């Protein structure tokens, strides 16, 4: 009907893990030059396991759905496993996104990595493959 799968519609009409975590282990904010969307992700890490993840966005239905799905996918994973999460896995879990909305899933991946980076900076835990995110203020 709208080019969205049922999974996507479910995740933006009734998003999971929307909100914020006070005193998070890691928080990251990213923005998209392409459409003006902003995504912020919060993580609670105990040991090296992500026990809670929440998000706030400014974006379209696909951006809300991507963040909702990404947070659901990383809860229970170690930070090292979460590092392996790709935007295409988020797209798969959502049973697809329209081509022009794929960049929304990239934003979810970037927000997660920005939050992981913040966690690694605060905790001193090195996560292989992780680098500093772009400053959203530059966008």
């Amino acid at each position, binding site marked *: *009907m*709208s080019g969205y799968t049922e999974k996507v519609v479910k995740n*933006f009409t009734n998003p999971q893990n*929307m909100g914020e975590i006070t005193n998070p282990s890691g928080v990251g904010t990213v923005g998209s030059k392409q*459409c*003006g969307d902003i995504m912020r992700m919060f993580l609670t890490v105990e040991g090296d396991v992500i026990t809670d993840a929440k998000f*706030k966005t*400014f*974006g*379209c239905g696909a951006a809300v759905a991507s963040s909702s799905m990404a947070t659901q996918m990383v809860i229970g994973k170690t930070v090292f496993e979460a590092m392996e999460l790709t935007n295409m896995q988020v797209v798969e879990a959502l049973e697809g996104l329209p081509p022009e909305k794929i960049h929304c899933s990239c934003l979810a991946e970037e927000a997660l990595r920005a939050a992981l980076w913040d966690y690694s900076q605060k905790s001193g835990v090195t996560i292989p493959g992780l680098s500093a995110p772009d400053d959203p203020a530059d966008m």
Partner: protein
Amino acid sequence: MNGQIYFDNASTTRLCAEALDAMMPHLTECYGNPSSKKYSLGADARSALEKARETVAAALNAEPDEIYFTSGGTESNNWAISGAAQKTPGGAVVVAATEHHAVLKAAAAQKKFGHETVIVPVDGLGFTDTDALRAALEKKAAVVSVMLANNETGTVTRFGPIEQAAHERGVLLHTDAVQAAGHIPIDVKKLNADMLSISAHKFYGPKGVGALYIKRGTDIGPFVFGGSQERGGRAGTENVAGIAGMAEALRTAAAKIPEETERLCALRDRIIGYIKQNIPHAYINGAEGAFRLPGNVNFSMLYVEGDYMLDLFTQSGFCVSSGSACTSGLPGSSHVIDALYAHSPHRGTVKGTARITLGRYNTEREADALLSALPEIVKKLRDNLLYEEFIKSQGK
């Protein structure tokens, strides 16, 4: 589609039964070519065509020989602009900032033939700045084009001062009446435009057919080259079924204007009133009362993402349209909304815009359904990062 409420009548309308009935014979047994006048099959098509021309003319208070059939509003606009431009070498094409792309891009396309485009600004309600228009006309101009009613905001142009400004300088005047025809009364003799465009599918007629009114004695160049159809101005075998449907649709719509205006304005103003009273940091775009098309509601919410607004309306079962998304310059941003906000304190502020356009087949119950759904849609839209930060900054 089941469960969908259609509130996008400015995009297109449902074909009315009267138009379909008028079209059917020409899609079935009456298939003659109107140019084959020697036998009755062709002669019948010709007479249907000329009867349609009379009907369209009557609805606009024009003469039948002033009506030229085209493939729609876009073609009519393109013809008017290019046909007028070529008659005044080096003259500018002067258009309002809120024109449809069918005018703006047709104007821009004349640059390669030596016609500069001059864009005249509008005020915060969408009314063309007449002083700026007069100033623009101090230079040599080929044609002025200002729409009769805007497709996004529904603002109805105050046409008198524009007509005076153009004709004082002896410049041809075109008006895109695609959104106005069949919705507000049109009298070409009172308007005194030299050219006027209409499109059938905006007034419950079929898609792919429209007309250009060209006032007697107005000299513009031809648009489509080939046979001698439409007095040599627009060649090609006529879309007889479409034209017959358009004529009947326009006749029906024009007759219904008084009752429909009253009914739709009441529904429109209920929705507008609700938005003004209940949605903080929301703004109605366009003029109000008699200077707004009867079925048009257009509003922007600050710090709301335009696409998400549309996504939520769609998922709640409403077909509406987005005026624009995000801030100026971003994909989906509307030149019409940007022009209205040019001098606003909210210029450049991120906002989502929705256009809700009611029509003949919408009921009061459907408007009620929208008003019941709005609080939940607004709540979801406002649960976002930017709006929170904005509210926090307001508290400081």
